[in-house]
């Protein structure tokens, strides 16, 4: 399924957080959104999974505006991993995953169980089913949330910094799981090298506007990184995969 963000503008308390953003996620593509802190990544994603309503423009799934669709109908095709975690109520892993079934109609307890069991198998958390979600490690939690998203049986997946606070093995593991899901994916990522290695297309967002778009090796240019992130970057090739990777200097780019 194709996701289109069409000239989306988002305002909060009179401040324009996202301005005239246009980007598309083709069916089955893994699209990354990178940008400095406060650039509007999360805000933009929140408008995609309907936690925010844009002031202008539209978010479309195969042409249908997600903000005029029935919320549950939208949730049947689009799942999200927001960047929040409540620590107030101790649901078990199985209960958290089962929440993914909420938007679906015509379901039975048995079909829900089967779908959830498959989702937990795919993300390798079946053995945690009876554990309390709050007692899990960060990596386990993220896999459980991916299982919940898969239990939603969506066709588009939106991820807000899914690798935050994870060690490197778990970062790679999470991205591999997402990649292997075959869904159309839009992910905000902090780590430019992870983004370069995993994304088909990257969009760079800065102060609420998209400033560059394209395949990672075209987008991650030293001049752009100096402009947007204020760092000096050196491009190298990954010795095995050939993907572009970056090495950074602490010096500000002006002191060449």
């Amino acid at each position: 399924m194709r996701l289109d963000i069409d000239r989306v503008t988002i305002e909060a308390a009179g401040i324009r957080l996202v301005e005239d953003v246009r980007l598309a996620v083709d069916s089955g593509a893994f699209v990354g959104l990178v940008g400095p802190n406060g650039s509007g990544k999360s805000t933009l994603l929140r408008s995609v999974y309907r936690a925010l309503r844009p002031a202008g423009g539209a978010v479309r799934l195969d042409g249908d505006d997600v903000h005029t669709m029935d919320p549950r109908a939208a949730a049947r095709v689009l799942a999200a991993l927001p960047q929040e975690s409540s620590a107030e109520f101790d649901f078990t892993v199985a209960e958290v995953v089962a929440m993914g079934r909420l938007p679906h109609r015509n379901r039975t307890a048995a079909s829900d169980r089967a779908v959830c069991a498959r989702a937990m198998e795919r993300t390798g958390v079946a053995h945690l089913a009876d554990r309390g979600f709050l007692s899990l490690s960060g990596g386990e939690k993220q896999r459980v949330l991916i299982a919940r998203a898969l239990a939603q049986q969506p066709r588009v997946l939106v991820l807000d910094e899914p690798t935050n606070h994870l060690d490197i093995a778990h970062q790679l593991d999470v991205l591999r799981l997402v990649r292997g899901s075959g869904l159309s994916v839009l992910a905000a990522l902090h780590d430019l090298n992870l983004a370069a290695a995993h994304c088909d297309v990257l969009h760079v967002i800065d102060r609420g506007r998209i400033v560059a778009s394209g395949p990672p090796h075209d987008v991650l240019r030293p001049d752009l990184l100096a402009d947007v992130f204020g760092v000096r970057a050196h491009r190298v090739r990954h010795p095995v995969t050939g993907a572009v990777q970056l090495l950074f200097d602490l010096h500000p780019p002006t002191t060449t």
Partner: protein
Amino acid sequence: MRRTAPTVRRRTAPRRISVLPLSLLLGVLLALSLLCGAGLGAAGIGWSEALRFLWAGLTGGTVPAHDAAAYTIVWEIRLPRVLLGAVAGAGLAAVGVAVQAMVRNALADPFVLGISSGAAVGANAVILLGALAGLGVWALSVSAFVSALAAMALVYAVARSPRGLTPLRLILTGTALAYGFEAVTTVMVFGAARGEATRSAMMWLLGSLGGATWAQLPLAAVTVAAGWAWLRLRAEALNALAMGDETSAALGVAPSRIRRELFLVTAAVTGTVVAVSGAIGFVGLMVPHVVRMLVGADHRRVLVVAPLAGALLLVWADLLSRLLLAPAELPVGVITAVVGVPAFLLLMRRGGDAFGGR
């Protein structure tokens, strides 16, 4: 292949009790407790007699003339009181569950929204100032309910924001306005010259089922049942909301909308319960926690068990409140606190992780 060694479990997996047997057990206990409530009391009416009166009342039978006074005590005073206790307990427990999910705070209870304090203003205007005297015996309930609705409208209007009703705004608004309402009540209590009225006001503020009549029951029961049914239908949405507003939105449950609905339902049930029984504390805070410890956090289960547990607790608390110092009566809120606090602390210390996180 997973390289990581199997993690050592810091605690054992949460132990969960199946809902069906637990509900059946609580249901049977509740039925027996209702009988106890009707059979026991200060008047010293024997068990077999009390059962005979109940049977006569249920089947429309007759009782001998010399039993008329005892029959009236069992059928007209005790039974509506016990039933109202069950209804109020069920309502407070169900609303407690919902309010905790709505404001995503395990310390919330039905009164955190300021509705009971608002109701208290109306109730005390009747008790202390003799307001609405034209309504007779209904004055107290009507006044309490109307002022609960007014308080609810005020809290809603103040807590609203462009982003809808957010948990923090709801709690802060409810708490702040509750202080205001309590100040008004306090002024009325201080201003009242009559000692007995002040005592009644105190009784009402701490909660009492002493004024229960058959006439109050239908409306309270229907409101609690309808509110509970609605909450149970929304149990999965409550689960989503408990995980966070963003998660909820992503699962197709618009948080602002569900919170608005929850506010109306919980306020209506709270207002109704408070109007007939005063502000009985602790049931709406403790029962949801204890039930979550027993059956887990899933609201589909919590909302089945909690009303039964709340009803059971309040029936016994009320029974104790009228037996301990018979023929004098303690406010039932004192009993829920005396019984509840130690039980609650004990369970909390043993409950570990199941208790509102770490």
